């Protein structure tokens, strides 16, 4: 005799959805809402002067292609990325090798080297602004010692020096990030494999390419992905160091979008840019995440 109150379905079947609901709601707020909002507004003609909400078709998107400043900003972003990323990677790798073998005090060295990575990028930019000062900053002073005469380089103003300054700051802050991750990855490489290679007579480069690199690649790929995306979105350091100047020389895509939205108040046009950026990055990111095996 079965009890009359027998259930017909799993009483906990909706539990899993209750758990996810608040998080998904918030993610839609920062994920899907901006996407659709930008899409909608980008078909209108809203700016500081005019709140014309009529349909403007692809007017704003047409302007994207004519916007020289936008394409320059994209170029600046790419320039910084392709220079800074490999340097951070190689320097980080070299540093990881330096600290791979145990040595007394290693933990202290590593802890000190991590400092730049954990401070706010705005603070990092501000710090380098002080360091780079042409008169009272120590950089020119130190360079003067080597040059044998006073150096008065205008790091954040001189068009020839402003990129080196930005990239230097960027490398200073994020090489430790690469270093830490690669040090951990290298430490996890099976020692018996490298030792067997050494016994077989393989040199350093051969061992590295054939054994070490394949072993650390999954981790390295994720480090490159994280840093690459951060670089493409670079804003804080530029803002603190040069604010995109001189002129628009160091304007990255983020700085330019910000300027369009919050200085020029080109609402619809900014929405078009934002939509473009979201779409491009979503596609690239989703592809990269799958490709690089971040999704287990």
């Amino acid at each position, binding site marked *: *005799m*079965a*009890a009359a109150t*027998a*259930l*017909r*379905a*799993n*009483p*906990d079947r909706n539990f899993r959805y209750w758990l996810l609901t608040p998080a998904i709601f918030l993610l839609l707020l920062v994920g899907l809402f901006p996407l659709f909002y930008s899409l909608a507004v980008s078909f209108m003609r809203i700016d500081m002067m005019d709140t014309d909400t009529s349909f403007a078709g692809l007017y704003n998107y047409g302007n994207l292609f004519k916007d020289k400043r936008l394409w320059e900003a994209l170029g600046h972003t790419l320039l910084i990325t392709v220079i800074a990323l490999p340097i951070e990677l190689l320097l980080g790798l070299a540093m990881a090798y330096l600290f791979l073998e145990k040595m007394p005090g290693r933990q202290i060295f590593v802890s000190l080297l991590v400092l730049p990575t954990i401070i706010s990028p705005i603070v990092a930019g501000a710090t380098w602004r002080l360091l780079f000062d042409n008169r009272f900053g120590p950089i020119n002073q130190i360079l003067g010692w080597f040059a044998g005469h006073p150096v008065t380089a205008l790091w954040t103003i001189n068009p020839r020096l402003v990129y080196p300054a930005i990239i230097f700051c960027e490398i200073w802050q994020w090489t430790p990030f690469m270093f830490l991750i690669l040090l951990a990855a290298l430490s996890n490489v099976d020692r018996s494999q490298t030792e067997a290679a050494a016994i077989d007579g393989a040199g350093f480069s051969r061992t590295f390419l054939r054994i070490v690199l394949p072993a650390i690649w999954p981790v390295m790929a994720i480090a490159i992905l994280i840093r690459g995306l951060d670089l493409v979105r670079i804003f804080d350091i530029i803002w603190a160091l040069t604010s995109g100047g001189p002129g628009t020389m160091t304007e990255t895509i983020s700085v330019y979008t910000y300027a369009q939205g919050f200085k020029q108040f080109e609402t619809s046009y900014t929405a078009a840019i934002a939509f473009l950026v979201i779409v491009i990055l979503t596609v690239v990111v989703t592809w990269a995440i799958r490709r690089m095996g971040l999704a287990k």
Partner: protein
Amino acid sequence: MSDLKITGLHKYYGSFHAVKGIDLEVPSGEFTVLVGPSGCGKSTLLRTIAGLEEASEGTIEIGNKDVTWARPRDRDIAMVFQNYALYPYMNVFENIAFGLRARKFATAEINKRVNNAADMLGIGPLLQRLPRELSGGQRQRVAIGRAIVRDARLFLFDEPLSNLDAQLRDDMRVEIKRLHQELGRTMIYVTHDQIEAMTLADRIVLLRDGIIEQLGSPLDLFERPASHFVAGFLGSPKMNFLPATLSGNTAKLSDGKKLVLGGKRDGKTGQTVILGIRPQHISLSGKSVAIGHARVAVTVELVQPTGSRVHVTFPLGGKSLVAELESRDVSKPGEKISIDIDMTRAIVIDPHSEKVI
């Protein structure tokens, strides 16, 4: 009265059909062992009884109450897991008390029950320790203790001894058997180890590919297996299988030797069959041949002493046969011996249906 009744139970994982229609009724107080090779669905069946897996079809009743869709906690069950499932951040006392606390028992009652269980299992001095400070056997006792304090209607064991070393496993087996006798509770025990099944069970449910292959007392299954699979699964050393041809009441082996079958079998003359003979049913020839025994002369190939007994391998009917003999009967390889096979207990299998005939 039955404590557990399963009707027409199916379980699918996507397109994989793990449990294919099981009907089972477990009487109150019985120790039932679900046994079978890995992938036979025994663990899935147990987990479905526990409510950790949803039944795809069919019903489960525990204590005459339909619990097919009830939460695990509403099923009046207690379970011992393979890897002990002890909470590493709680000491032994809290681990055992966990279920009682979850059910809001009074502190005095909790203390009483935990101490009782600890005494019963001989882990009284360990109550303040953390799980990581315990040996494997001690952890297993704590896991069992956590189940017995619950005083549930149904106790489920999911391969609880498989992580222990051989010696400990023997000890714990005795312990579990003793607990069952003391508590008199209905217990369902999953294992892939046929020795555990034979020694512990009041009744064995032998599963294969999601269906019940045979169900009965250990001796039933051992002496009267229903199929080739059951015959081969139970018993150690394994049952010997010989191809043969029936001719009346005689089985003719491929090397021409004839063995007279004891008792009446259903096979037709000329039918090819498989003859199953347990190593325990072979003995060294005495002065006279006992009724129903067949006497054969063989040449010893291999001798494996196990202490009290000795496993002797010899060729017969185109196969290597194993016989379990008394230690004092030890022979040397190459020696010619005469053996008696108890043909009344031999089984005859139809090679097509794989059923015993």
